[in-house]
């Protein structure tokens, strides 16, 4: 028998790390998070706001805004493509990098940052896939090809592969501290690609257009209803990201409590379903059953 003593480190996203210098340990029972009324309502409100704002973005993007003089109707894809790219590259992967750095920093080391990084990477990978698909669909009628080995496109694809590797690394069985540390290093390694993606349009000759909003002069080259729709798209997709991050973080807390081993979880489920069954995973003394 190996004994793990749950610590008292915070498990809620808003609570932050506990004391400085605290060694990372497995979380305590996550009921405070799972049953927190405030957390549930915050998640619901963010989710509802995200859904409404995405609906408004689609309505404005497809029916209200005019076609572009040069791009025609294809400009409508621009209302979502930069938004998903912003979430994937800067919000999700940027947050993962910062969280990983805070985990590695001894004074702020806490499993809170590890879980936050894991949640951000998973959501970021989904948004990164959306970025590549929406960009490809825009590129086909504009450039004549679905894909080009352009600097920005290639580096964005490399970023996706790197963070898929991060997710694969998390699934390799290991002690929690070991897993968290090596995943943090992997996230920081992958994050080196983020500035390369951002500045690729300036450093190399690329098919991809340069910055429209955050350009060198900070003078957006888009205006009118198009600019407002683009801005709403950014806000809507950011809200979607926040909602997904909150939900994914909660899943991470619950997974850490019960353990993510599929076999152990399946056993626990069956035991818990049995009437009056003691939900132990072989402990034999009625103690808790955190696996892995």
């Amino acid at each position: 028998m190996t004994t793990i003593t749950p610590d008292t480190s915070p498990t809620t996203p808003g609570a932050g790390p506990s004391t400085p210098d605290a060694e990372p340990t497995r979380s305590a029972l996550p009921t405070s998070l799972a049953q927190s009324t405030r957390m549930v309502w915050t998640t619901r409100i963010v989710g509802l706001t995200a859904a409404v704002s995405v609906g408004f973005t689609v309505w404005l993007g497809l029916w209200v805004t005019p076609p572009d003089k040069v791009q025609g109707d294809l400009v409508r894809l621009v209302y979502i493509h930069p938004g998903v790219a912003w979430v994937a590259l800067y919000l999700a992967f940027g947050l993962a990098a910062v969280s990983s750095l805070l985990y590695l920093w001894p004074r702020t080391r806490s499993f809170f940052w590890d879980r936050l990084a894991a949640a951000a990477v998973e959501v970021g990978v989904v948004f990164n896939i959306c970025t590549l698909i929406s960009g490809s669909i825009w590129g086909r009628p504009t450039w004549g090809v679905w894909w080009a080995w352009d600097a920005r496109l290639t580096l964005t694809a490399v970023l996706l592969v790197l963070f898929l590797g991060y997710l694969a690394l998390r699934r390799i069985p290991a002690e929690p501290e070991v897993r968290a540390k090596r995943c943090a290093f992997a996230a920081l390694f992958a994050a080196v690609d983020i500035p390369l993606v951002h500045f690729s349009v300036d450093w190399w000759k690329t098919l991809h257009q340069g910055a429209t909003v955050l350009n060198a002069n900070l003078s957006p080259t888009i205006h009118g209803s198009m600019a407002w729709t683009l801005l709403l798209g950014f806000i809507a997709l950011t809200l979607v990201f926040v909602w997904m991050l909150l939900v994914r973080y909660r899943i991470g807390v619950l997974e850490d409590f019960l353990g993510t081993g599929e076999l152990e979880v399946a056993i626990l489920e069956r035991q818990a379903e049995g009437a009056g069954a003691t939900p132990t995973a072989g402990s034999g003394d009625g103690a808790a059953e955190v696996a892995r």
Partner: protein
Amino acid sequence: MNYVVAGYSIVLSILFLYGVQLAWRRRRWTRLVARVEASHAAVGDGGAGAAVDVPAE
């Protein structure tokens, strides 16, 4: 316009399906934890804060 509709449909579908999957996973894990906690309470174990045993491999 077909490309535009395809782009919106694919991106929003991916986000929607991932969101549904997240909600399902959260519900599954929350229910599982609740069941385990209920079982803990039934045997008077206490659960939170207690040392937990991990079965040897």
